[in-house]
C-alpha cells in the first residue's frame, strides 16, 4: 500500500454523480460511497467508458441514463460499439457500492442493489468482469486511463491505494 500525493491525472475528466463518458480520455470519480463506477474497457483499441451509477433502476426515467444501473450499462456498451469496439473485446471493472452508514435510511443496501443490477446488465451482454473492489463500508476514489491497459487505481480516505 502506498500513499498517493497526486492520485488524479491532471487531464482526467471528472465523472460526477449520474454522469458518464465514452472515449480515450482518462476518467476519474471522486469519493464513491453507495454509488458504483462502472468501467468498460476495450484493450485492443485503448478506449473505454465510465459511468457514476447512483441507483439500480431507472423505472422509465430517461433524462439521466448514467444515473441508473439498468440504463448505464447499455449506454456505455452501445456507445463503445458505436465507436467501433467489438463486443467480445469489451471487459468490465466495478468499484464502489459501499454501505457508509450502518442502519440508516429507508433505501437499504442501495450499494449492493446497484452492484447486482449492474452485474445483471453485464451478464446479459456477456461482458466479462476482470476486476472489482466493491462493498464494504469505505469510500473510494477511482482513476482510470484507457491507454493504461485497463488499469484502475483506487484510493481510500486514509490515502491507501490499490490497483485492479
Amino acid at each position: 500500500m502506498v500513499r498517493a500525493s497526486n492520485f488524479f491525472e491532471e487531464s482526467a475528466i471528472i465523472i460526477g454523480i449520474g454522469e458518464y463518458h465514452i472515449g480515450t480520455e482518462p476518467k476519474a470519480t471522486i469519493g464513491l460511497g453507495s454509488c458504483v463506477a462502472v468501467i468498460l474497457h476495450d484493450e485492443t483499441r485503448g478506449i473505454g467508458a465510465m459511468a457514476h451509477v447512483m441507483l439500480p433502476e431507472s423505472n422509465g426515467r430517461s433524462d439521466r441514463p448514467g444515473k441508473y444501473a439498468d440504463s448505464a450499462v447499455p449506454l456505455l456498451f452501445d456507445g463503445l460499439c458505436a465507436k467501433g469496439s467489438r463486443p467480445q473485446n469489451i471487459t468490465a471493472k466495478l468499484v464502489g457500492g459501499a454501505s457508509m452508514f450502518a442502519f440508516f435510511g429507508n433505501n437499504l443496501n442501495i450499494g449492493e442493489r446497484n452492484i447486482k443490477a449492474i452485474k445483471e446488465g453485464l451478464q446479459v451482454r456477456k461482458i466479462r468482469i476482470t476486476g472489482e473492489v466493491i462493498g464494504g463500508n469505505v469510500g473510494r476514489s477511482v482513476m482510470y486511463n484507457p491507454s493504461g491497459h485497463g488499469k484502475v487505481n483506487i484510493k481510500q480516505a486514509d490515502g491507501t491505494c490499490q490497483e485492479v
Partner: protein
Amino acid sequence: MLLTDIQLDAIRELGNIGAAHAATTLSQMLMSQIEMSVPEIKVVDIGNICDHIGDEYVAMVVFSLQGELEPGGYIVLLVPRESALRLTNTMLGMTDMEREIDEMDRSALLEIGNIMISAFLDGTAELLGIVMMPSPPALAIDMAHAGIESILSQMDADVNEVILFKTELHSEEHRIKSDILFMPDTRTLNDILRLLQELVGSVQ
C-alpha cells in the same frame, strides 16, 4: 429548481438562526468562543456536487429530518478528521493527535452532533412554528463526497438538484472547524418557503 433572491435570502436567514443556536451549544461544550461564517446557499446539480464536496477525510454525523415534515431530507455535521480529533480531545481532556479515531471518539462525535443539530433544528422550527426533530444520528468517518452521495441516494430518485446550505463554525482557540449541511427534500423546501412567506407577510 429556481429560487428567487428573496427566497434564497429567507433560507439563508433561517439557516443563520439555526447555525447560531448550534454555535452556542458548541461554545458551551468547548467553553470557548465560536465564530460563524455567513451561510452559503447554493442550488447544485448532483453531477457537480464534487465541485463543492471533495474527497477530504471527515467525520460526518447524519440525521434525517423528522416531525411534521417527514420525510424531510437530511442534515449533516461535517468535521474534518484533524478537527474531529481536536474536538474530542478537548472534550475528553486528551492531547494525543497521532491516534486513530476510536470508539470513545465516535460516541463523543455522535453526542456532540446530536446536541448541535438538535439546537439548529430547535432554532429554525421555533421561527417557522413547526416541529422539526432529528432522527437518531448515524456516523461515518470517510471521504466527504462518499458520505454525501450515499445520503442523496436515500432521497427521492427524481432529485437531480439539491440545496446545499453550508455554515462554517470555527474555534480559533482549539483550531476546530466544522460545517453544517442542510439538504431538505423538495417538498420540505416548499413547505419551509411557504412558512417563511407567511412569516414575512404577517410582519408587513
